């Protein structure tokens, strides 16, 4: 039990029953459903290959990319090492400038704070700019239960909301939908849409513009997330493309921003690093079309009432694990999703959390506690592509291995008998420890039979041929056929 530092045990994680960090089924089960959907795989393969090429081209333009990456990692590590001091500094600056800062231990508390703030304005409708934090806590549902309608204004979020669907990507939540599917959703769900709407992306964007314009011009309350908050100035920042963010951040009377406590940068100067890394990593652009920054309230310009909700919801539990903490460096660019061979084939829904892909596989289990997301650290080939593209240099593969240890340890403490995995690994460990044992085993025809059986076992009928737990092991793995002669035998003969 040496792996588990003592500190993260007992630190409160994100509570169950609220928000979207846990799936209804394990990753392998959800992935099996996704893998059977050919349309989904085609949509994803098109989208991820397009964005990979765009990102690679604009990153290659930047000669000091690795130096920027090193600086970004150092900045975020400095934030995490002094997180309480920076938060207190941010709170002071925002307050000085006329904003009001609220603290939320978890999703329930954040939802209650926001609901009360909206209720106090007397408004029953809010416009929302896409926000991972509010998806994480299930804010829209909480508002709905309080009789408040939330309108998502990002085009992809709108597609997801109208389709009664779930987002499947951090940056492009409707990446799993193609244009025909989107047209069909608009035709059936969007009030006042032209029934002759085509599936041309420009026509679909125009339909969304018309639908949302009146909301922007009349709604008095907006809710946003934040890409960054600057501790030394109290400045908040949102990057976006469509202008829906600017609409929400400037036109309403009241702005409520919900932000994870880790999304801080120490100084305004640090933006020189992150505004170079984020757009190129996420949309593959030199710069996103719109970036908005505001500091408290600006008299005569924009909302005259500003509330900032600082959200923990499992982040301090993540901070407590020294080997998992770096997941909190994440700036939600989604570069790791687009290069991941597992994400490309299963899509985001299989991860069960609003944070899918490689970063989701390390972030979600830490926010919820590994017991609530035990399959996610295994949802990876450990190929390392995610680490290569990460603008804040999170070593995701290394962290996945660490979290696998934590999952196994968690199972060991809650099971009296050894788990099938640990029994199997112990047997393999014994066999590999001595070269005589290993040579003997290689020669044994049983291994060959096992491998042949494993191929059979991937068919539904053949799966019964191997008993559990081996059936589960081989159902998602290909075993190579053993060679007719081992290298050791060949060497001995020569």
């Amino acid at each position, binding site marked *: 039990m040496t792996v588990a530092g003592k500190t993260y045990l007992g630190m409160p994680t994100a509570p169950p029953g609220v928000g979207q960090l846990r799936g209804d089924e394990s990753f392998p089960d959800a992935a099996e459903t996704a893998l059977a959907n050919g349309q989904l795989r085609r949509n994803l393969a098109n989208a991820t290959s397009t964005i990979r090429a765009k990102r690679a081209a604009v990153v290659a333009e930047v000669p000091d990319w690795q130096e920027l990456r090193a600086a970004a990692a150092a*900045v975020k590590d400095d934030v995490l090492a002094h997180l309480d001091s920076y938060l207190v500094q941010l709170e002071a600056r925002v307050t000085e400038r006329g904003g009001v800062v609220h603290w939320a231990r978890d999703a329930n508390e954040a939802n209650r704070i926001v609901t009360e703030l909206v209720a106090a304005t007397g408004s029953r409708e809010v416009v929302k700019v896409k926000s991972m934090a509010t998806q994480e806590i299930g804010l829209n549902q909480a508002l709905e239960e309080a009789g408040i309608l939330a309108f998502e204004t990002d085009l992809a979020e709108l597609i997801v909301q109208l389709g009664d669907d779930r987002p499947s990507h951090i940056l492009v939540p409707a*990446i799993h939908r193609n244009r025909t599917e989107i047209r069909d959703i608009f035709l059936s769900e969007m009030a006042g849409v032209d029934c002759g709407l085509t599936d041309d992306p420009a026509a679909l964007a125009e339909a969304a513009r018309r639908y949302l314009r009146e909301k922007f011009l009349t709604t008095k309350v907006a809710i946003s997330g934040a890409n960054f908050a600057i501790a030394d100035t109290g400045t908040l920042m949102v990057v976006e493309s469509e202008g829906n963010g600017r609409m929400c951040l400037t036109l309403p009377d009241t702005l409520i921003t919900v932000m994870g406590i880790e999304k801080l940068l120490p*100084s305004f100067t640090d933006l020189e690093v992150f505004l170079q890394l984020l757009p190129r990593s996420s949309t593959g652009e*030199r710069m996103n*079309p719109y*970036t908005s920054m505001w*500091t408290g309230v600006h008299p005569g310009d924009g909302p005259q009432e500003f509330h900032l909700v600082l959200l923990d919801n499992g982040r301090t539990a993540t901070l407590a694990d020294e080997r998992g903490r770096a997941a909190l460096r994440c700036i939600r660019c989604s570069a790791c999703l687009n290069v991941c061979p597992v994400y490309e084939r299963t899509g985001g829904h299989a991860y069960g959390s609003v944070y899918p892909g490689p970063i989701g596989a390390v972030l979600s289990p830490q926010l919820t506690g590994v017991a609530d997301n035990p399959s996610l650290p295994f949802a990876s080939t450990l190929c390392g592509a995610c680490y290569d593209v990460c603008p804040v240099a999170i070593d995701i593969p290394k962290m996945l291995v660490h979290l696998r240890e934590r999952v196994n340890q968690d199972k060991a403490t809650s099971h009296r008998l050894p788990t099938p995995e640990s029994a199997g690994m112990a047997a393999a460990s014994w066999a590999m420890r001595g070269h005589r044992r290993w040579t003997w085993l290689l020669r044994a025809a049983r291994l060959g039979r096992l491998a042949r059986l494993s191929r059979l076992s991937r068919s539904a009928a053949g799966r019964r041929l191997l008993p559990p737990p081996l059936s589960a092991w081989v159902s998602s793995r290909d075993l190579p056929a053993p060679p007719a002669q081992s290298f050791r035998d060949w060497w001995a003969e020569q």
Partner: protein
Amino acid sequence: MTARDEVLARISTALGRARGEAPGEISGAAAIPRRYRRAGATAAGEGVPAGVGHQAELVELLVDRLVDYRATVTRSEPAGVADVLAQRLGQHRIDSVLVPDGFPEEWLGAVSAERRTDDALTPAQLDGIDGVLCTGTLAIAETGTIVLDSGPGQGRRALSLVPDYLLIVLTSDQIVAGVPEAVARLDSGRPLTWISGPSATSDIELNRVEGVHGPRTLDVILIQAARPGF
């Protein structure tokens, strides 16, 4: 215990501090390794000495980047700005144009469109105006970005957002090479809007579509000299 105190206590515990131990001094920006380019460089990565040649190179780079984002750039000598501006408005059939306080009057001499001022217009009233003119705070060549800070000639943030046509007049001495030079020049206390091309979305099969909620047209007039009065 309040939520604030509890979250702060959790952080302290998570970082392994003993109970009651004060958090360490925050190190600020000084402790961060900054071996990346911070000034005087172009996209080619070679430091270019500041001067006339450097500024000319930045102009070309900015124009290239803006056009790549489907903005339109028209270059003008200082004496020709009024004519170029009127011609751009005419080409886009702008019948009513909002002119923020502080926009140089000498650039408006040839404008025939109805001129409106910002008399605390409501969002719906702004929506009824065809286009808006403004100046900029600075522009970043490497990324094709124009930054507004709601200063004179720019007006509040909503002005450059709601009307469908946006025309920004820049002078070539407002162009900096990269993001670090821009951040160093900006005042964090002002509301800042960074604009890189017109409103766009890539949410449908990652096809870029211009014009979702912000202005669908971004027109830039670049004056090859210093701005009047600067």
